[in-house]
Structures are given as C-alpha cells and as structure tokens.
C-alpha cells in the first residue's frame, strides 16, 4: 500500500494527522489506514505503536457499537518536539474502572498478568475482552493518560449514564540512537 501521509521528523513545526473513524467502518479499513501512515522513528517500533493504538481503537469502536453511538472516533497523531503524541477521543460512554482487572493508575511493570483477576475478567467476557488494552498502551508508550469526559467535554469521574466518552493521550520519545532528535532539530 502506498503511504497515506507521513509524520516526518525533519519538520520544524508540529504536525498532526487526524483520522476520523466511523464506528461502523470495516475494521480492515481501519488497520489499512493506520498501516499507510508513515510514523516517525520513535523509541518503539512502528508495529508496536500500531498494535497499541489498534487495541485502544478496537475498545472504542466496541463501546460505540454497544451504545449505538454514531459519532466518529477521533485519532490524532502529532509530531511535536521530537515526540509522537497520540490522542484517541471517543463517545462510547467510558467504562467502570472498578471492573478492570487492575487499577488505572497501576504501574504496568508491577502488574501480575498471571493473577486470577485477569483470567476471571477474560472468562466473564467470553474472551472477547482481554482487559489488556490499557496495559499494552502503558507498556508501549512513555506516557499514558486517560480521562472521562462529560457532555461538555469537561473531565469527570466515571459515572454511568453521565460520562459521554474518553480521551486517551499517549506519547513516546525519539529513538535513543539520536537519529530522530537530530532530524527533528533540522540539523
């Protein structure tokens, strides 16, 4: 597939590619669109970035379908100061953090993936949900932030029936070999 758009590290200004994902879109088209974007050389591989974003996007699409929410999900990929920043904004109503097999604020390095909580969660959901999307995102990106939003786009604690959706922000820095940072500075 030909590259769709490119986030080049040699651009001095910030640049954003925005994807509007229709929740009824064929998921294969979503995958192909992400595959067609040329990502900047960051600390982790393109493949890992795409895996993590796809997993979160999959959760958002499922939430939209369950809620019958027709609005698009926004995915922004921004290159700024040598960092790749990804934001995913959905209107899927959020989720009850208490039902996850781990705490949202928990350090992924300290999580026990063999704990019965994970398998119970997966069995309870017929293995259609692994409960791992946030874990994978935290393991892939340097920074992870998730906030629930109300109907005015204001942050709120998750509340059934009142939370309209989530805003997830992920970021990862330039490759450690320095190639990305040199390119980013225009040298």
């Amino acid at each position, binding site marked *: 597939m030909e590259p769709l758009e490119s986030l080049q590290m040699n651009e001095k200004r910030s640049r954003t590619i925005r994807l509007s994902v229709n929740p009824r879109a064929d998921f294969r088209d979503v995958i192909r669109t992400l595959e067609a974007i040329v990502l900047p050389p960051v600390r982790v591989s393109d493949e890992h970035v795409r895996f993590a974003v*796809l997993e979160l996007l999959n959760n958002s699409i499922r939430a939209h379908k369950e809620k019958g929410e027709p609005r698009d999900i926004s995915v922004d990929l921004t290159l700024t100061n040598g960092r790749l920043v990804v934001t995913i904004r959905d209107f899927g109503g959020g989720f009850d953090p208490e039902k996850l097999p781990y705490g949202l604020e928990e350090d992924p390095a300290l999580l026990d*993936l063999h704990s019965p909580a994970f398998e119970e969660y997966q069995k309870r959901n017929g293995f259609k949900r*692994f409960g791992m999307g946030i874990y994978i995102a935290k393991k892939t990106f340097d920074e992870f932030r998730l906030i629930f939003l109300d109907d005015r786009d204001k942050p709120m604690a998750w509340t059934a029936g009142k939370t309209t959706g989530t805003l997830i922000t992920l970021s990862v820095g330039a490759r450690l070999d320095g190639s990305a940072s040199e390119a980013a500075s225009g040298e």
Partner: protein
Amino acid sequence: MGSEQRKDLRVPSYAKAVLVDGHVPGYIRDLSSSGCQVAFILPVSVAVGDVISVQVIAEHDPTIAPFHVRLRIRRVIEDPPWHSLGTQVETIRDPKEAEAFEKLVSYYSGPAT
C-alpha cells in the same frame, strides 16, 4: 528460532486468539491462507516444530463464529513486550472450522469498502 516459509501474501489483521492450553490471550497480527503470526503478551512455553491449538475470536466479522485452529510453530519471535509466534496452519479437519479460517483470510484480504 526457525524461519517462516510462507510464500503467499500476508495481510495485516486483528483477531483475538486464545491459546487453548492455559487460556493465554493473544492476537493474530498477520494472516495468509497458510499461516499467521500470533502475538502473546505473556510468554508461552513452546518451541519451533510444536503444534498449538488456539481459539480464534473474529469480532469484526460477525458472520465468523469463534473457531479452533491448530498451528505448527515455525518461528519464535521475542519482541518485548510481545512474544510472537510465526505459524503454519495444520490440516483443519472440521469443515466448518476450515470455512471459518478461510472467511477470516478473505475478510482481511478483501477489497477496501
């Protein structure tokens, strides 16, 4: 590590794949009619040449019911945090499961909508 011999076109894909032995969750990341790559977030105790059985859950095509497939491991790829396996499909004896696998391949290799 071995090397994969798949010559047919692989397509990027997304389906959940649960290792039957131990219920280890994974994802089918690419796919062809003869094999697939399965990425696990937990390490799995397998070696090249082993045969594993996974349950495939293809949630994005509701016409594909969950099915089982046996996969022979051709390559073990350690790529933290992922533990991935390049695999070759073993003969699928159940015609319904063979049909489900073919539908999965067709879905992800089909034309853009």
